[in-house]
């Protein structure tokens, strides 16, 4: 939260608006969360651009549909398990 006074005007509204979408971040985000979002964004982009999808299909020697499916599956825990919460995080 920035200055206390601005909770309810345009900026706060902007923040609220932003927080409604997945993939957005905030000042307390950790590296893992940020990168997970990046990975998912990347895969979503590659899936939905037919060109990129075909390209990956060729490289991986799979059908386009299979590639799509693989990319979709890779969105589940794309970077592996989240790091353990340390006591320091809550400070």
């Amino acid at each position, binding site marked *: 939260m*920035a*200055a*206390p*006074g*601005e*909770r*309810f*005007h*345009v*900026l706060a509204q*902007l*923040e609220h608006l*932003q927080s409604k*979408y997945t*993939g*957005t*971040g*905030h*000042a307390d*985000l950790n*590296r*893992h969360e940020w*990168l997970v979002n*990046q*990975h998912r*964004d*990347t*895969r979503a*982009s*590659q899936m939905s651009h037919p060109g990129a999808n075909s*390209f*990956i299909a*060729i*490289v*991986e020697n799979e059908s386009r549909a299979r590639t799509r499916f693989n*990319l979709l599956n890779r969105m589940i825990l*794309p*970077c*592996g*398990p989240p*790091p353990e919460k340390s006591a320091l995080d809550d400070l």
Partner: protein
Amino acid sequence: MSRAGRGNTEAYAQELNRKRAALRNDEEEDQPVGNGNKAAFGVGGSYDTDVYGGSTRGNRNDNYLESIGTGEEDDVDEDSVPTGPKKTSDFNAPHKFIQEVANMAENEDPFAETRTKTIAERQSKYHERARQRQISPERIDAFVDQTPDMRNRGYAEIMKEQRYQEERGKVERELADRAKSGDLQVSQPDKKKGRWDDSAKKEEALGAGSATPSQTTAGSAPRKRLGVTSISADAATPHVNRWDETPVHGSGVADATPSADRWASTPAAMTPRRNRWDETPKDSVRDGGMTPGWGMETPAHGAHDDVKVEDTPSASKRRSRWDLTPSQTPAPGSATPLQAGGQTPSFTPSGAMGAMTPGGATPIGTAAMSMKTPAVPIIPMTPEQMQIYRWEKEIDDRNRPLSDEELDSLFPPGYKVLVPPIGYIPARTPSRKLLATPTPMGGMGMGGFHMPGTPERDGIGEKGVGGIIDTQPKNAELPPLKPDDMQYFDKLLMDVDESTLTKEEKNEREIMEHLLKIKNGTPPMRKNGLRKITENARKYGAGPLFNQILPLLMSPSLEDQERHLMVKVIDRILYKLDDLVRPYVHKILVVIEPLLIDEDYYARVEGREIISNLAKAAGLATMISTMRPDIDNVDEYVRNTTARAFAVVASALGIPALLPFLKAVCKSKKSWQARHTGIKIVQQMAILMGCAVLPHLKSLVEIVEGGLDDEQQKVRTITALCLAALAEASTPYGIEAFDSVLKPLWKGIRMHRGKGLAAFLKAIGYLIPLMDAAYASSYTREVMLILIREFVSPDEEMKKIVLKVVKQCCGTDGVEAPYIRDEILPSFFKAFWNQRMAMDRRNYRQLVDTTVEIAQKVGSVEMIARIVDDLKDENEQYRKMVMETIENIVALQGATEIDARLEEQLIDGLLYAFQEQTQEDSVMLDGFGTICTGLGRRAKAYLPQICGTILWRLNNKSAKVRQQAADLISRIAPVMHMCEEEKLMGHLGLVLYEYLGEEYPEVLGSILGALKAICNVIGMTKMTPPIKDLLPRLTPILKNRHEKVQENCIDLVGAIADRGSEFVSAREWMRICFELLELLKAHKKSIRRAAINTFGYIAKAIGPHDVLATLLNNLKVQERQLRVCTTVAIAIVAETCAPFTVLPAIMNEYRVPEINVQNGVLKALSFMFEYIGEMAKDYIYAVTPLLIDALMERDQVHRQIAIDAVAHLSLGVYGFGCEDALMHLLNYVWPNMLENSPHLIQRWVFACEGMRVSLGPLKVMQYCLQALWHPARKVREPVWKVFNNLILGSADALVAGYPRIENTDKNEYIRYELDYTL
């Protein structure tokens, strides 16, 4: 009572008492103590009912109030004039005169009309019931893993209580019935001896302590049982009415039924409570028990120094008990013993009295009262009471004896104080005083005149309420209290040492301070309070917060604004408290639900918002378990509001979530109330959510359909209404979902009569538009028989529904015109087209709509021909209705079908109706205009006649007539143009020109509007009078301060500047420019906008140079609004005359070393870039140095405006290859992210967003990456805002630009797909 004053009072009093006692012994006490029943001299009289109220202790079984009636009926007549229920006046003037005087006194307040009414004052009886509900105590939060507080109740307990209440209601009713029929006898316990009885033992009864009735031991006194309440108390519950108890002192209370006392929860009531009746006045022997109404303050000399007169039940005092705010006096029926705990949450009245007396003031009045009878002042007063109280105080204060100092200052030197002769007793008999002072109730008006004190003698008018109670809290930063705030904020009046308070007390005090700031403070205070309370919401905790806010919202003296603010507070803290709010859901609902049926639209919206937020915070399960018990509450009001609240919950959490619950409720076997409410919930959902019910239509209909065959008529009716609402919400889809209900509905309209029939008809009426043409046709035929039968129904509601259904039916495809013409129209016109229908606004609307709808089917002529003659009806309202109908028909269908004969009739009627109008609204004008436009060229024949009328009326003595005539010209000017009546228009123009000297601004505005209309259709060249004559005449009118004149004048001038500027000299235009600057000050936005646009036209006409010089000069003025408007005007000039003509001049102006001018220039640039869009590509390199300079300015506002300009600039030049300049600018914009001003940050975010578009998201991301993970939160925060905007705006584009992060041993962070190469 004057007889009391003469002779030996004491002896007389004794005599009286003796006689009275004797009388009582004779059991002949039931002689009525009626109004005007004078006691003959020497005969044992009765108590002064005006002093002792309508019931005296002595008189046993007549009108002694056995219980406090908390129902509203009892409260109502408190305000009506004869104050005591049975009042024996001292003088017996005819009642009507007293009434008249009282009325006059009541109407005294000259500001009464202008005063903003409190919400309570404008509410209907039904709405008022909101305040009779009690704020229930908190409940168990089922989601918390702790052993719930045993004091809190869970769902099961509440349901049990609900059952119990219901049961009790039933028993009570039954008992009452039986009592009425005589089966049940009122048990008369043996007579209790009242204190007034023992006058024989007066001597020993001296002193307050001995006032307890001697024979009755505390608590064991037999209770007198009379009336329904006490019967039921006997039969069903330990419900003990307060007044049933023997008034006992001290220990006696402990013996009374525990916690059944309605005030038991307040600590004050725990302490030995002294009844006002308990005390025998100390010297009752002396004055015969006739204690005067207001002798609180006895002069401090003389023999009878200790004759402190007790607080006595004068009429005004008596009120205080019954007049408590409802939050503290729940209706006895609904008060369960347990719930009482929640009624007065935290307002321990402990310190109230101390707070009310400012330090050092002599303890007269209140203080004295507080010493004698603690009860009265502790109980919070309503404004009226406070007013009365203040008035009494004032009288007392004014009549207080002059002090020695005052006398000294009055008299010339040489006077001395004489010793009173021996044996002298000052004639200070209280009864005399009674005569001397008016009765309190008679002369009371709210907020009457208060005479200010003279400097020598402090008045009391200016010392807050009554001069006794200080209204300024000790913390001087807080706003003062209003009289009715006293009960909520009294603690703030006390000066306390913060360090001695416990944490809870401190928090409570803090919350109170914030709330007071929000409620009574100035906007900055309010903002501050709101912020603080929101920030600390979790710290304070839900309980303390709601315990203070909710009673405020229930206050009867609440005003709209205050309610809005309090609701806002709740909204904010809900957001913060989140699931902490669960135990308080019901409390909040009790207060917020009434908003849902408020007449004010915004209140309803606010209420919905709160409940929806509450639902989101507390979750579905909590909402259902909290509201479930209210669904079959015995009170219809509670059920109604609960149903609406449930609908809001459904809209917040989704319909599917609620379906299983609704299904169960609507099929409830136990009570029809539950079914009724369940179906009502569905109805409200349909009304609230509209077509959003469509996906669930089938299941919703299935849920409610059972109700059509319910045994309860009310359930059947609401089901039909619910189906109507569902059908209305889902038009034109979803007929399949209603298949199953068609048959029962169909049967229903044959079976029902009256209200039920109306509901069923409504349902059918809304279903017909959903059907296929064939079905609709056959259904219409069937239902029409019944409709036509009901045409003649006298019931207003039925009329509206019938009209609505007719409209629906006729609008449907399958219904053919011949059928309507033959079957419906004759009886339709017979039944509805009469003057009576025009009187009610809603009937009026509905009839007009229906008629227009039918006209769509059967053709306009058919309908117009039937009603056109009514344009000459003698009833104006009816004429208006006819006119509006014809207008709507013509507007929709044109006038092509109208034949010559009808045309004549129409115009004839129009002229008549127009000339006869007396009311001021636009119906006639609009009608005239629309019909003439519809007739088009066919109106030519009638124009001379119309213009003749207009000309004649323009000359009328009445301003209104002139105005209407001028308005009519502006309506028909286009038609005149169409009919090529230019000569006529020219003539009108000249006449109007001559009338420009008009002195009524309303009329002048209309005349200008008419001129404008003529000018617009005739063209500048052909205009008469010629433009060169007209415009100079307009210039002085621009100075007129009336908004309508200004607006019309500036429009006309603007039109001339736009299209006919060549007719006027440049000098004249410059003169107008100067006048226009003044218009920039106008309050109305449309005027300012018109003025600014006119600058553009003028600049175009005479070249930007002079205009610009004028405008730039205007930047130096002080007023912000003027400067802002000027900058907009500069930008518009730049846009209309191409930026290069203006830019050099304004950039040069930036060199003026004056901050206002520089800011103005920057702002003008900003607006200019906004307006010129991509044209900016030619100027970006020219202005970049200036912007760079501005971005390095120390002044924050300056940079802010510059950033705004950069943002508009960057958006304008997107795609024109100006990245180099933009990057340069961004380098100067970027460091502003660390500023604190939210405005500046907002512009900065905006500029970055502009850069995202024009520079590309990757460039901006590279700026962000440097700071996203900065150790300082202050740096990270703004940058995340920008980064989030990047993600929202161009997530896809960022994929390629994210940095490559190395893997860790656990996590794989490299996106290997990006490494693929072929």
